[in-house]
Structures are given as structure tokens and as C-alpha cells.
């Protein structure tokens, strides 16, 4: 039987009634913790055109978070900024290419990633299911806050124009782009590729590949915990966050994506609250979500919203 069109798929995700209260409480807890930013020059990775720094700041639960920060050596007094968010398994990249385009660029390593794993390290596979039965201790509670605190870091920098901050990433970075754009009104433009962490309960039926397969593994061993798992995940699902997004946003998906099913990308896009939104579906593409062609679209999008518009 031919596969149904992903655009026709109806997500099972239901936003909890106390969603805003839950995250409001988390944000209150986080705001009581000083950021304590530390910016350490990295001469090995600094060149004539790009300055590179290793950055550290404190997040919720007092976990120290690492990041890479690059900025153009020659720049205006106030530059636009981009926060780059990492995939599930990837090691956060050094964002030199964004600095070469004229942005102050921060690449965050949320807790558990290399360089941010001294206090919290559930490992891979495992992060996705770590404390998945309890929204108050689920791994992604802190993980999400770590990325939102990255915005605080950028806003603390004198060289960053606080009115021109964007966020981007693909896969898990795409999902984190959604949650960050939803929770940080300072974000002016967002670009999410192949968004992960969106439609968890849909994805584990639509695909049987890692990393989502971690959840199926867990439920196979602990079927009696399914209700608790589903309750928790609803608070962390990008689809639940999506109606809070008000900034300009673009989303790209691959119609043969074997990691983050395109059905979940469509479901997410439908729920995004912004009036300025556009979906780019790429047929013949998997989890790359058409990156080779779409990079130019992303560059033009951010140039329009962060560089041209002052």
C-alpha cells in the first residue's frame, strides 16, 4: 500500500493544560541562577579574520555549560548574532562559517555533550530516555534551558545587537530551534531543519531507527510505564511549544527522512503560531532535508531579517 502523504498526517500530540505553568516555573528556577559567563580566547582556532573563544556559563541545577563562540575580527560596533544548536549525536561545531558571514556566532554544548558532561552524563544512547517518566527531572528539562541560556549569553555581549538575534540548527538542533524560538521572545528569526523532538509519540510509530528507537527500546522493557512516558513527553514536544512562536521562521524537511519522519515536520509546521512562516519540503532527500540546496535559503533568510533590517 502506498505511504500516505506526510502533509495529511494528524499528530497525536496534545499540549498539556498546565504546559505554560510548568515551563514558567522552570524559567523562574533558572532565572535565580547567575549566568557567570566566562569567555576564554582560543588562539589555536583564531585566525586573521575570525576570533574564536571557548565559552562557559551556568544553567539550571547549577550545571556548567560549554560553548564555542566566534566573531568576525573586523565588525561593526553591534553585530547580528546567531545561536547554532547541535544534533543529537554530533559534537557541537566551531561556528566559524557563521562568523565569516558577519555574525557573532554561539555554538552551544548542552549538558551531557562533550565539554558539558562533567556534572551530567547519561550518555548516548540513553539521553533521550533519561528520567523519561518524570517531567521535573527528565534530561531535556535542563538540556532545553541550557540552550535558552545561550540567548542570555549573547545578550550579555557588548558586540551583539540585541534586536538582531537568530537561532538555527538541524535535527535535534532543529527541535531546539523550535523550543528556543518559542520561549525566548528576543529571537527575531529562526530556521529549523529536519526537526527532532517534535512528535515523539508519532515518530516512534512512524520509524524504527535510532535515536527515536531508544524510546521503543525503553517501552519494550517497561511497557507498564507508557502512560508516564507519554505524559512527560507532551511537555517536551516541539509541537506543544509551537504555538508560542511569533518570530519569522522557516522549516525544511526531507520527504524520505528516516530519522525524523516528515509527517512530524508537517504537524509541527501546522501548529507554529507565527504569521511569517514557510515550509520547505525536499523530495528525494532524507535527514539532510535538502541541505545542499537549502543552505542558500537559510543564508538569505537570516540576511533579510538580521542584516538588512535594522
Amino acid at each position, binding site marked *: 500500500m502506498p505511504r500516505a502523504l506526510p502533509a495529511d498526517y494528524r499528530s497525536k500530540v496534545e499540549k498539556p493544560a498546565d504546559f505554560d505553568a510548568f515551563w514558567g516555573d522552570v524559567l523562574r528556577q533558572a532565572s535565580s541562577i547567575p549566568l557567570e559567563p566566562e569567555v576564554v580566547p582560543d588562539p*589555536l582556532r583564531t585566525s586573521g579574520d575570525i576570533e574564536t573563544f571557548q565559552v562557559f556559563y551556568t544553567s539550571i541545577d547549577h550545571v556548567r555549560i560549554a560553548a564555542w563562540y566566534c566573531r568576525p575580527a573586523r565588525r561593526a560596533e553591534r553585530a547580528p548574532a546567531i545561536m547554532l544548536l547541535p544534533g543529537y549525536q554530533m559534537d557541537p561545531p566551531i561556528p566559524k562559517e557563521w562568523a565569516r558571514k558577519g555574525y557573532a556566532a554561539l555554538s552551544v554544548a548542552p549538558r551531557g555533550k562533550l565539554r558539558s558532561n562533567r556534572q551530567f552524563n547519561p550518555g548516548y544512547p540513553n539521553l533521550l530516555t533519561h528520567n523519561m517518566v518524570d517531567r521535573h527531572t527528565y534530561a531535556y528539562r535542563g538540556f532545553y534551558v541550557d540552550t535558552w541560556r545561550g540567548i542570555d549569553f549573547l545578550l550579555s555581549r557588548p558586540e551583539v545587537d540585541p534586536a538582531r538575534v537568530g537561532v538555527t540548527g538541524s535535527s535535534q538542533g532543529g527541535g531546539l530551534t523550535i523550543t528556543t524560538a518559542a520561549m525566548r521572545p528576543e529571537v527575531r528569526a529562526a530556521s529549523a531543519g529536519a526537526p527532532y523532538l517534535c512528535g515523539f509519540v508519532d515518530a516512534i510509530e512512524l520509524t524504527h*531507527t535510532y535515536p527515536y528507537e531508544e524510546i521503543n527500546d525503553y517501552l519494550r522493557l517497561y511497557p507498564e510505564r507508557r502512560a508516564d512516558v507519554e505524559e512527560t513527553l507532551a511537555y517536551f514536544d516541539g509541537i506543544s511549544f509551537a504555538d508560542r512562536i511569533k518570530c519569522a521562521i522557516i522549516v525544511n524537511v526531507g520527504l524520505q527522512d528516516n530519522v525524523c519522519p516528515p509527517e512530524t515536520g508537517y504537524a509541527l509546521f501546522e501548529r507554529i503560531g507565527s504569521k511569517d512562516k514557510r515550509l520547505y519540503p525536499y523530495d528525494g532527500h532524507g535527514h539532510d532535508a535538502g541541505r545542499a540546496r537549502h543552505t542558500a535559503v537559510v543564508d538569505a533568510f537570516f540576511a533579510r531579517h538580521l542584516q538588512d533590517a535594522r
Partner: protein
Amino acid sequence: MTDAAMHDYWQHALNDLSRCPARPEIEPLPLRSTDFATLYGVRLSSFGPYRLFGYLSIPKGAGPFPAIYYTPKYQSVLEIIPQGTANLQRSRYVTFSLAGRGQRNADSPYAAMFPGLLTDGIDNAASYPFRGIVADSIRGLEFLLTRREVDHARVVVAGNDIALITAALAKGATHVVTAPALFYRTADLAPKTQAYPLEEINDYLRRHPARAEAMRRTLAHFDLAGLAPRVSAATLVMAGAPGSLLDAAALRPLTAALKGPVTVYESQQSLYKDGLYSERWMAERCGIEDVQSILPEHWRD
């Protein structure tokens, strides 16, 4: 680099490895086991001595089965099978993935940085971490071949440069799938890109220009074109897209030097198309006729 110098370098590494017994410990992992495959965590030793970790998956049913050995990747995370691969792959193949020294689960005492590993200690060939990582990878293949469930006539070694180097230096690979990224004309190609991982070379030379010659000497031991004549397995070379740094034209000296039959695939810049090609290539060579049944849902016809 002369053939003799390269031979001596690797023979010393192999001798070091042979003096170190593997002493494997194998433990079932029920969380990742299914009704079609059992997963085990494996600890084993390489030279140093250094304790490594891998994931071994054995299909249920009567073997022997074809095997895919996933050699250490250039990332901190060790995957059971590569992200995006259908879990059902484990129903038809024995799979074994190994963390080389420095990767997660094998990061004590040495925790590698990414980026950073490629140039860590690169000015000293004798102590360069990749000498150990190659030995680790060979140790992994040796371990896999001790398993009675493995059909020795169908053993695929898959990965980046390390897959090809492993097949060059160790017996047992019948097929290789390799996507060169690190060790093909590294010093020559790095100045032509600003992208990591080769940007690590540019960073290093900018900071340590006096070490350029020592770095080149080390890299010469790892150069894929020099090792290719030792590879007799049938090999699928996953080249970059046309016009990219490591496209088929750039890799021609390497592919021409491989001793066994070679298939060169140029990336179509689609993880779907590229992944589908390699899955089908492996299945055809391993006698798996119903490859559709072990593809990800969104890749099936």
C-alpha cells in the same frame, strides 16, 4: 614515505597489538535486545594497554550470518548502528560497532576532543593517537571474527578512513565501505577548505608552523593511497559530490590503487539516495535478497 617505512611503522603497531591479549568481557544488554536480535556490550583490550568498548548485535535464529563491522568514527558518540539505519538491519546481520580510544565508553584514561583529535600529538608519529585507534579497530575486527555466528565469507568493514586502513592491515574483511574524510592527501587538501575536520590542520599549522614537516611525516603513514594496494576486499568508495574536495576525480589515485574490485559512488548530496545505495550494495554482496524488509520505512518502495 617509502613502502618499507610505512610497512615498518604498521608492523611495529601490529606487533604491539599481538602482545596484548584481547580478554573480552561480553554482557547482554536487555534494554537494546529485541525479538529479532540480542545486543551485548563488549569490553576488550588493545595495546597500551587500553580497554575498549563495543556493541555486538547477534540475530536470533540459526547462523552463520553476514556481518557489518562499524569501525571507530570521528565523533565522540558510539552508536549501536548508525543513526537512521533501520533497527531491522540487526535481524539479518551480525553488527559490531567499536569505540576507539578517546570516544565515549572508551574515554578513560584518554578523552579525545572533537574537533581536536586529528591534530592531537600529530608531530610525533610514534605516539600519535590514531596509531592506537587503528590498532583498536583491528582488534575489533579480530574479535568479531572469533564469533561463531559470523559467516567469514561475508564480512563488511564500514566507516570512514579507518575502515579502509583496517582492511589494509588486517585479514578478514571481504567487503569495505569507506567514506574518506581524514587521511587522503590531508596536508595538501586542508589549505583548500575552511571546513572541519580538515580545518584542524589549518588551525594547527597557523599556530605551530615549525611543526609542519613533522606533521607531514606522521600523516604520510596514514595516507590512504599508500595503504590502498594492500586492500584486496571488494570496496565501495563513497566519494563526495562532484566538485567537492573529495569527489571521485580527486580520489582517483586512491581508487586506482585498490587491489580488489572497486565501486565508486559519487554523493548525490542526499542522505536518502547515498544511504540507500550503500545499503543495497552491502545486501547484494551479502546475499540478502529482500533488502526492502530491512530498510527504514521512509526508504521503502
